[in-house]
Each structure stands twice: as structure tokens, then as C-alpha cells.
């Protein structure tokens, strides 16, 4: 909707203002949207059933589709005509493609659609609240599908995904564990208000890595001790560290990226707004 249209003005006081931050989100790094085609049917009426699922009533089918991850849901459309209809008329999917195409496109382009379900994305789009602080969360953290506000996104280290190697050192995790963590493919471009340049790379979720580390070592303290011991060992051989990589987000209506201070920090709360030491 155009921002200065009469409708937009009439509803102004019922909506959140668009802040127009120069925040360089994933949206700004992807090509401009093509206008959506008219909603004409792309295929003829179904002639085949959906196999063993056919005995289920439509509301149960809808329920099952909602719990599929987005990647599988989109692949399900190509199964046959009836499957395509079921997905295209799924209320949650319809809502997402009508109002939040950029969120879906962002998820698909950074390849996190494998663990975000249709129901989860829809639910996040229906809440305005930042999951950390409860303020208005204008951004969607696309790696694990979380609503987040500008401050939490730019300050909280859990919204700062990190390269797999660094996650493994920082939380004392073996490579097999790191490979199972939620991960994303970075789209090369300029991110965050600091205009950080990002090259093609893979990043894993900070919070999931932290939880995996705590689970592996038994407690936060045990993990920190193990990691700092390993650090001392390594530092005696080599020096230097990596700079943080920015987080990628699409937002509603536009997205953001955080660039927290370089995280040479070893004190964490359980994922809540901790200052780097």
C-alpha cells in the first residue's frame, strides 16, 4: 500500500510507523520484486487423488501441511494438481504469500526453509512483539524465525550468526554437532547500518550453538571452562581472531542486520541481552 494514500492516512494511528532506517537488510540485497501475477489458475482441475492421504478430511490435511517445513511445503505443490490446490488454498500459506512475500523469499534464498514450518512463520507474522524484550519487533530474524526489535537485533549476540568453525571453537562442539545446527547461506551484499560487506559464506545460529554447547558439557560453566582451556592451548600456538559476521534478516516491512561489538566475550547469560565483557 502506498504510504500517502488516503487509506494509509486513515489507518495511520492504528499501525506502527515505518522508521525508514538505513538498515541494509536482506531485502535490500535481493533483486526488486516482480509484480505478482493475477491469481488465475495455473493448472486444470485435478483428475487424480492424493493417494493414501485421501481418506483425511480437508481440515486435517490443512493441519498436516501447516506443520511441514516451508521447503517441503513448496515441493509438495509439484506432486499433482490436487496437492497444488491444497497448498495454494491453505489459509496460512495464502496469508504469507499475500502479505509477507519478502519473508518467504528471504527464507528460501538463505536456505533456512528446511526447519521453519509454515505454521511457525505464520504465527510470527501475526505477533508484533520482540521475543527478547517485548517491545515492538519490526524485524524477522530469518535463521530461526524470530520476531526481534532493532535494539535486540543489533545488541544481543544471539542474533549474530557465526561461521561453523568459530561456533565449534566458541562452544566446544564437535563438527558433527555443528553440522546439525540451524544454518544459513549468506547472500553477498552490504548489511547493517555500518554497511558491512559480506561475501558468500555459511553461518550457524548462535543461540542453537550455545544450547548445544551447554547440553554437551553439562552446564554453562563447564562449557566456558572447557572453551577457555582450549583457547589458552591455541593462543600459545597462534594469535588473532575473526571479526563477527553480520546477522541477516528480512523485516516487516523492511529488514535489518546487526553488527554487535566484536564478540571476544566469554560471559553469557542464557541468551539474554548480555554485554560482551
Amino acid at each position, binding site marked *: 500500500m502506498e504510504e500517502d494514500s488516503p487509506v494509509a492516512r486513515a489507518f495511520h494511528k492504528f499501525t506502527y510507523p515505518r522508521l525508514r532506517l538505513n538498515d541494509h537488510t536482506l531485502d535490500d540485497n535481493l533483486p526488486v520484486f516482480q509484480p505478482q*501475477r493475477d491469481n488465475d489458475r495455473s*493448472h486444470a482441475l485435478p483428475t487424480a*487423488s492424493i493417494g493414501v492421504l485421501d481418506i483425511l478430511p480437508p481440515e486435517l490435511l490443512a493441519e498436516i501441511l501447516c*506443520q511441514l*517445513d516451508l521447503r*517441503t511445503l513448496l515441493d509438495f505443490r509439484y506432486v*499433482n494438481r490436487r496437492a497444488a490446490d491444497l497448498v495454494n488454498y491453505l489459509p496460512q500459506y495464502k496469508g504469507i504469500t499475500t502479505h509477507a512475500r519478502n519473508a518467504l523469499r528471504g527464507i528460501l534464498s538463505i536456505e533456512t526453509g528446511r526447519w521453519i514450518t509454515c505454521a511457525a512463520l505464520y504465527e510470527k507474522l*501475526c505477533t508484533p512483539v520482540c521475543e527478547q524484550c517485548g517491545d515492538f519487533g519490526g524485524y524477522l530474524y530469518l535463521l530461526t524465525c524470530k520476531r526481534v526489535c532493532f535494539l535486540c537485533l543489533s545488541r544481543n549476540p544471539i542474533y549474530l550468526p557465526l561461521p561453523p568453525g568459530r561456533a565449534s571453537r566458541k562452544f566446544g562442539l564437535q563438527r558433527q554437532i555443528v553440522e546439525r545446527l540451524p544454518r544459513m547461506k549468506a547472500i553477498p551484499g552490504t548489511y547493517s547500518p555500518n554497511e558491512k560487506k559480506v561475501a558468500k559464506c555459511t553461518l550457524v545460529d548462535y543461540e542453537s550453538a550455545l544450547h548445544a554447547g551447554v547440553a554437551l558439557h553439562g552446564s554453562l560453566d563447564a562449557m566456558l571452562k572447557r572453551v577457555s582451556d582450549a583457547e589458552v592451548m591455541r593462543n600459545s600456538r597462534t594469535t588473532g581472531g575473526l571479526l563477527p559476521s553480520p546477522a541477516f534478516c528480512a523485516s516487516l516491512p523492511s529488514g535489518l542486520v546487526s553488527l554487535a561489538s566484536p564478540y571476544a566475550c566469554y560471559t553469557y547469560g542464557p541468551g539474554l541481552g548480555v554485554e560482551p565483557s
Partner: protein
Amino acid sequence: MADNSMVTLMAADHIEIQATLQAVKQCATLGTMLEVLDEQQTLGLPIPVLEVSGEALKKVIEWCEYHREDMVVETEQPGVAAQILTSLPQWDTEFFANIGDKDLLIKICNASNFLEIPLLLQYSIFVIAQALRGKSTEEMRAFLNIENDLTPEEEQKIREDNAWAMPQN
């Protein structure tokens, strides 16, 4: 009638299944029926559950017997409002792992909808979705025994209509 007295259910293929009254009350459909009907009329008579096959009903009752101490969850509107499951309790995980056959799993899902057992319905939907997750289009067709009636042109058109979503391909 005491909660531990036995009730007989009759499934579609005239298979009779014994269950405790307490377990049967997990099924809101049967529970309501037993409340409404006069005890004298129903005592000792098998309850017809002709919409459900014997095989599926057996598994459903097995589940209900295990969960018979649980509070019966109020039926509310299914869908988004329900909280999103991420994993099942251990016993239920094993219960579904032992089913193995997807046809039976889908029948259980349908039966729990018919008999109104919200928790079993939620669990079986979750298990079906889990079985599909990560599968490619061809794998899903094979798994669900689905015939493809899309012409190559139609498939191409769906892809074109959604080109906005896949900037890379």
C-alpha cells in the same frame, strides 16, 4: 458404572475390542454417548464404532489405555491456535515408531478425529508431517502413492508464478 469396568467396542470389520471405561472416556465422542444414554440400556452391549477399522481401533484403544489417567483435553478449534509441537513424549514416540505402516498411521489420525481425541489427533498429525519433512516431490509421490496429473506445461507455470520466491533458480 465404575471407571475400571470393561466396555466392548465393535469395529468396522466386526472385531470386538475390550477397553476400560476410563480409557473409552478419552474419546469425547464415546464419552458423551455413554453419558447421554441410559446405563441400563448400554450395559454389556458392544458399542458400534463402524467408521473405524479393527486394526486402527486397537491402536487407538492402546493409546487411550496408556493415557487414561490424563485429563481429557478440551476440544477447541483446531489450527493455528494450538501450540506448535516440536517433539513427542517418549512413550508416544515409541508408540508411533511401532506402527511403522503409514496407511495405519493415517487411519489412526482419521479415527482420532472421528472419536474426538484431541491429543492423539495432534500427535498423529505431527508424526505424519515429520514423515514428509525433507522429502523431495518425487519421494513424496512414491511415499504417499500419488499419481501425477500435472502436465509439464502446468508444472512450468507453477514455477513461473512463483519465480519471485526463488531469485536464484
